[in-house]
């Protein structure tokens, strides 16, 4: 058989294989979408029977999130200081507390990510300078919430407040370094998390009537050996805001979040 004919046969076989795999993929995706839609409908019905309202559009699509380790990056402290204050020498105040000061103000950074920066003059776009300094954030009301790869870190938030003399104080908590993703874990989908949430909340005696927003994100926990970003679901209701561990499906207490 000549090469040309062999190639034609190979093309036909590969076309069939592609068609089969494409069909499997399409069936898989359609089945998943269908299952998800059914599961969401059932969830809405279950919640309605419990007297809790949930708009269908409130349920977000799931994004894969990973538990990440966060090590202190002194370079990020100096980059932010440079962007906001200009050149300043670092002074080690002990206890992993680092201080910068120059004619434009002063800044103090802690290993937990807590920081305070006082600018003696608030000239220029602070948001632009903070972004130039490597700070990733989004504005939520009167606060700024840090984010990582497009996802909010709920307990890393800071605010701006005026100080005497026309200056501004930027204070709160940020990521003390760049998170490094760990091994991919299995995170629960929104439907499973919501059902477990309702179960655990009712056991605690808390009362609410409607679920207003559900968001994926992270919370930062700090320890002596370093920090960790833990994937969570934030569930906002008319009775309060709670956080669920996205891997274990259990309520987590988050200090410093809204």
């Amino acid at each position, binding site marked *: 058989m000549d090469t040309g004919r062999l190639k034609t046969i190979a093309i036909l076989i*590969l076309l069939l294989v592609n068609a089969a795999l494409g069909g499997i993929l399409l069936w898989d995706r359609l089945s998943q979408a269908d299952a998800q839609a059914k599961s969401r409908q059932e969830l809405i019905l279950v919640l309605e029977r419990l007297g809790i309202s949930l708009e269908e559009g409130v349920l977000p699509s799931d994004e894969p999130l990973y*538990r990440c*380790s966060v090590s202190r990056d002194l370079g990020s402290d100096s980059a932010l200081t440079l962007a906001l204050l200009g050149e300043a020498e670092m002074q080690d105040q002990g206890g*992993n507390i680092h201080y910068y000061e120059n004619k434009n103000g002063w800044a103090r950074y802690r290993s937990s990510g807590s920081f305070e920066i006082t600018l003696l003059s608030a000239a220029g776009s602070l948001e632009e300078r903070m972004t130039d300094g490597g700070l990733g954030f989004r504005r939520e009301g009167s606060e700024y919430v840090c984010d990582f790869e497009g996802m909010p870190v709920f307990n890393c938030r800071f605010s701006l407040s005026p100080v005497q003399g026309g200056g501004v104080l930027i204070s709160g908590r940020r990521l003390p370094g760049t998170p490094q*993703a760990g*091994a991919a874990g299995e995170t629960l989908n929104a439907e499973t998390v919501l059902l477990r949430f309702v179960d655990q909340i009712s056991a605690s005696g808390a009362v609410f009537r409607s679920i207003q927003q559900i968001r994926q994100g992270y919370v930062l926990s700090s320890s*002596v050996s370093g920090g960790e970003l833990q994937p969570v679901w934030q569930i906002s209701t008319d009775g309060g805001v709670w956080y669920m561990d996205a891997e274990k499906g259990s309520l987590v207490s988050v*200090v*410093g979040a809204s």
Partner: protein
Amino acid sequence: MKKLLLGLKEPVKSLLILLLLCSALFLAWQTGLFSGLLPQSEAEGDGSTGSGEGTLSYTRAAWPCAAAITWDNGLRYGVKYDDAAMEQIYSQLSVPLGETLGSSEAPVRISEKSWTGALSRGSVFLDYESAQSLPVLALWLGTEAEALAGSNARRLLLAPGEAELTQLLFQDAAGRFFRCATMATWSSVQTAVSSFLPNGASFARELEGLEACEPYSLILEQLPALTLLQSYPGALDSCANRAAQVFSVPMNSGSSYPEPDGTQVYLGEYGSLRRSPEGLLSYRYEEGAPVCKTEALQIEQSRQLLEQLHEAFRREEQLFYVGSWEQGDMTTVYFDYRAGSLPVHLESGHAAWCQFREGVLQEVGIYPRSYGRSAENTDLLPEMQAAAAAGSIRAGSEARLVYPDLGGESLNPVWSVRG
């Protein structure tokens, strides 16, 4: 033109085959046919407590026996005899405590009245049962505390100071009280302990009938549930085999001899391993011994070495550092067992030790023991009564729960008088 088209036919076919092959591989990957064949990325990190990249890593070797959070209104949360609850509160406090110790200024002596005043208001109290070197505590928390060089503390207190910063107060081994200004914020301490709620804990000095007791002994309204402890055999043999590997000592009869007291001695290349009839296993260095010039290094070296031996027979017990004793040019670092949230008291004294001469490790000794909790709960005298009894036996003493190991299979928790 026809010739050109004919000439392109084969190369186009080859290109099409390549594209269809890539497409098939992509579709196969998307459908998950290749999942499980590709390696997963693993998170890096050893989880040890480090003081920074490239520097020596120190791991905590002791932890508080009691802790209390006092609110401004005087209500208090206390934890004692509950290792899980203690670990929770300590892990929440570790970062602000490290900041407090690391940024401390030099200690200033204060009166007991200043100490009790701070204790009664918003504060966080930690009791280590035996005096700990503050610079070593700081190293365990990933920082250094040069201003606290030479200071030790049995009890620590974090309290609000000036300018919304935290002040550190402590009571040293001699019973004196000190205060240090720090750069840690009080809000970081408050945030760390905000998830705890009052549980009615008090200090002995606040309770009627306990005037004769150690005033800063924490008294709980209700003791946590405690069980009997089970002692398991075989720890000595397992430890001996591990020691032979760690210290490269052959355990054959050709390299061993008995001493008059019945101790079997095994000779190795760098020292000798001894196994006594009383169940003590010890190794004496002749050469090649580690050199540890500072107290922190001696504790860390001892912890690591004993951990290697302990791994061979560990069940539910832990070895924890209790103190260092100096005599002349000799320093002995002592460790005891802890199981079921209580310390274990051996008849023979401390569970393990490492002895250094001018910083050079001379001897390592351990009484290998394995313990586990039994399912059997135990009834105990309420802590108030035990504390009152301790005060009547010896003024200024406190009642402490311990498991005495008298050689039997089962250990009961008992109240012992300390101080």
